């Protein structure tokens, strides 16, 4: 075993984040917990540098570290997206944390570690490295969710998340162990080769697949293992919710594609039907539940369950184009959901709304705050899936793949669900533009808020109109 310089450069984004996290901890210690703005700055810069390092890897395809890490379009694209999510969450957070009276410098290093875990997950070429990435991400998130120690909801959410996360990780790990027993290796490529040679399913394989599937279903929060997510999303500090409903979900999905879509592809036909049903039930559950919410944070939480259903459609479709489509949709989803949460967080700092995330807080804001109104409208349109946003193209691309592979029922179910979803997304626009403003409409307007909104809405429109670069990245998936 030997490592060359190429290997080191290949994982440069991860290394940068490690350094960033350590530096951030040191800076935080030096500031003696009085002021975390220096910590935030270090983190933000770290994310930018790491993101640049990630983007510089465009165009390379191969494996690094003796076959442990994939360097391909997926890795590159999602490293960059995670850095973006991390960066925006970092700059967005101070004002929110201040508003919520959470003054803990640990926030930023934990955020960095979590992003690091996500990057390791998407790059991993074997099940162990994936598991380590998953746990790095999850353990940081457990702390982030319960960071608001004085708020019992936050603590409760943290506990629930931890129990559910650890429980599902154990399933996942057992699945990995059994896969190891069957194949004799934990490398994705070895798994593919094994099943290519012998596509029969023994009882041990079935058990392994079932356990892995259960574990993944928890992580990506699909029916019937979706129940924890809404509570956790509601209880966590809102910036953490925004972060964890986008990045970790995307990371888990990428691994899901790598394991179930690609590594286990030779035997994939055995669970296509099961996954189709999970996809349909997830969409329906998410959308129907979202319809009746009065709390906008919970509404978005349910809607992200529904989106997991649409994303599964791409995995069910199961060919190369479908994975690229799912990748594109994931990117779009991450951007629009982050944007929607960010906008909602801003709305709920409206004077006198006590941060309860009721829909009423939106009333009449559209004309009072044009930037907020327009960007939230863009996010909603993208979540609905209307052109010219990225959400539209993502959905189109995924459903197109489904129709191509003959899953017409699934595509129709997805489209009908999008219509149900239209109803509750439009309600946001209705309240913003068509309801009379009630009371004080002043909202704090720090610069990072504006930056976050502008960056996300511009990106959504940009990759919605010129998707070619993103799609070409996503197509370049390592075999």
């Amino acid at each position: 075993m030997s490592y060359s310089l190429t290997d080191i450069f290949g994982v440069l984004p991860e290394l940068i984040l490690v350094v960033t996290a350590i530096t951030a901890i040191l800076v935080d210690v030096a500031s003696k917990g009085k002021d975390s703005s220096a910590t935030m700055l270090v983190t933000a810069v770290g994310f930018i540098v790491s993101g640049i390092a990630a983007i510089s890897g465009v165009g390379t395809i191969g494996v690094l570290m003796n076959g442990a890490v994939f360097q391909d379009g997926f890795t590159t694209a999602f490293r960059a997206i995670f850095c973006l999510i991390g960066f925006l969450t970092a700059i967005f957070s101070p004002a929110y944390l201040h508003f919520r009276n959470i003054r803990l410098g640990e926030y930023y290093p934990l955020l960095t570690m979590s992003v690091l875990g996500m990057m390791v997950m998407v790059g991993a070429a074997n099940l162990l490295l994936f598991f380590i990435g998953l746990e790095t991400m999850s353990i940081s998130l457990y702390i982030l969710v319960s960071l608001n120690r004085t708020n019992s909801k936050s603590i409760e959410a943290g506990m629930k998340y931890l129990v559910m996360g650890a429980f599902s990780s154990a399933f996942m790990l057992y699945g990995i162990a059994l896969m190891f027993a069957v194949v004799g290796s934990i490398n994705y490529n070895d798994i593919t080769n094994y099943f290519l040679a012998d596509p029969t399913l023994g009882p041990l394989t079935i058990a392994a697949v079932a356990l892995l599937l259960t574990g993944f279903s928890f992580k990506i929060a699909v029916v019937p293992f979706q129940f924890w997510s809404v509570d956790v999303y509601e209880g966590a500090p809102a910036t953490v919710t925004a972060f964890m409903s986008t990045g970790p979900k995307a990371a888990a999905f990428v691994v899901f594609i790598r394991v179930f879509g690609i590594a286990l592809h030779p035997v994939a036909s055995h669970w296509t039907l099961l996954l189709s049903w999970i996809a349909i039930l997830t969409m329906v559950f998410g959308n129907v539940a979202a319809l009746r919410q009065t709390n906008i944070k919970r509404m978005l939480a349910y809607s992200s369950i529904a989106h997991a259903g649409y994303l599964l459609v791409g995995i069910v479709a199961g060919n190369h184009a479908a994975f690229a489509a799912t990748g594109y949709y994931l990117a779009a989803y991450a951007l629009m959901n982050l944007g929607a949460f960010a906008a909602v967080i801003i709305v709920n700092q409206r004077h006198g709304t006590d941060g309860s995330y009721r829909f009423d807080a939106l009333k009449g804001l559209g004309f009072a705050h044009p930037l907020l109104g327009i960007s939230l409208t863009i996010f909603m349109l993208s979540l609905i899936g209307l052109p010219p946003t990225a959400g539209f193209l993502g959905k189109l691309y995924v459903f197109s793949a489904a129709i191509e592979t003959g899953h017409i029922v699934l595509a129709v179910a997805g489209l009908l669900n999008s219509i149900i979803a239209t109803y509750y997304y439009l309600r946001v626009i209705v309240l913003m533009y068509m309801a009379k403003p009630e009371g004080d409409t002043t909202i704090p307007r720090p610069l990072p808020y504006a930056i976050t909104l502008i960056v996300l809405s511009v990106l959504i429109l940009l990759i919605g109109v010129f998707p070619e670069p993103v799609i070409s990245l996503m197509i370049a998936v390592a075999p």
Partner: protein
Amino acid sequence: MGLISWYVVIPAATAFAITLVPKAKPMAIRWVASTGGFLLVLLSAIVSVKYWNLAAADIELLRTSMFTKLYMVEQWTWFKSIGIEYFVGVDGISVLMLDLTAIIIFTGSLASWYVTERPKEFFALLYTLVTGVFGVFVSFDLFLFFVFYEVAVLPMYLLIGIWGTGPRNYSALKLTLMLLMGSAGLLVGILALYHGSGIHSFNLIELSKIHFPEAFQLWVFPIIFVGFGVLGAIFPLHTWSPDGHASAPTAVSMLHAGVLMKLGGYGCLRVAIYLMPEGAIYWAMFFMALATVNILYGSLGAIKQKDLKYFTAYSSVSHCGFVLFGLLALNLMGIKGAVIQMFSHGIMTGLFFGLIGMVYGRTHTRMIPEMGGLAKVMPWLASAFYIGGLASLGLPGLSGFIAESHVFLGGFFGNQWHDITLMRTLTILATLSIVVTAVYVLRGLATVFHSTITNPEFEKLTDATLPEKISTGVLIAALAIGGMLPWLFVDLIEGSIFPFLNRLHESGMISSL
């Protein structure tokens, strides 16, 4: 950039320019908007003349052609990996539709001269909507077509929801959800065509060179036809239309009834019938029966209405039924009639909704029984109303007559695939609506404008102002030109209809139906 792209650029630029005008200057906003509309009319005139010169040379060629010939084409690759192109151009049918849209948006801008609530946002959204509508009429790439279609739907939601009247939130939501439902079906159909063709292209002309298997056509045709049919208010999916029109502000009603509903018929012809002739032959009688229900239901529904807008909205449902009826006759007369009817009804209903808006702006009521004797105080508006009403009941000399007579003759002649008795029965049923229309139009107008003035307040009302006079004048002129110089239209569109017929005949011969 070619001539056709200006159809998208001008309204988009107008919308953008409007957002730059300071809020405090409503007059400037109106001028920018109307100038944009005027430029579009000018552009349409240029394009029409140019098309005329180009197409005249090809008419003999088109008589036997299987493929629509496009003029003034612009084509660039947009997303290479999926096979999406920016592919725009025109044929005779789209030229007519573009003319219609330009006239409606110009007159609609003038008719909205007195919008006082947030005029800036209103006009900006209006021109965004129009960008979508023009885009649909010039696109010959199905993906582009669909994108523009959706661009047209959403501003509608905001325009009705914010500037509408009555139960506007309900109407706006109903309209949007139903149209999106239609477009979801459409998307499935388009994707099925995309994958079913085997060439992974959205290019309409390329797709038309593929012969889709008959079984495929039989299930995709109804999906696409109904997808567009929702917008064309096909029975029983028309219910969004009366509510939507009644709640919408004036210019939006004009655009919506005048142009957007035509988009449905246009799509049925352009995509469904063009690409899937066998499917069209198979399903024609079923949908023709629905169209007949539309025609009768709409006109009978109109009789009962007391609200002028609902009244016009129901009559629109009826008139849009003529469009589908004509298309499904699947012969030259019928399709020609349907296309003329799209234009004629667009102008007529635009005139109606414009006038209703103007009257409502003065009387603040739209209830027919509450009005009376308005002809004395607003002679201009009353005369315009009469002309529109006469066109609506198909008086010779106005464009409605040309359109309806073509449609009925088309239905009566029948075609070689379907039972002639059935078609004639449906046609006779449909003609009954003319009588009904005459009853409700004349009765409605008589109540509103004649008899004595019921409300003393009405004595003080004024007649049309200059922008309103220009607006109604242009529309009336278009109606009259359509009625007196029909050869203008017929020549324009006839050449472009032949490819549709040739395709139908070819597939009718090889088909076992």
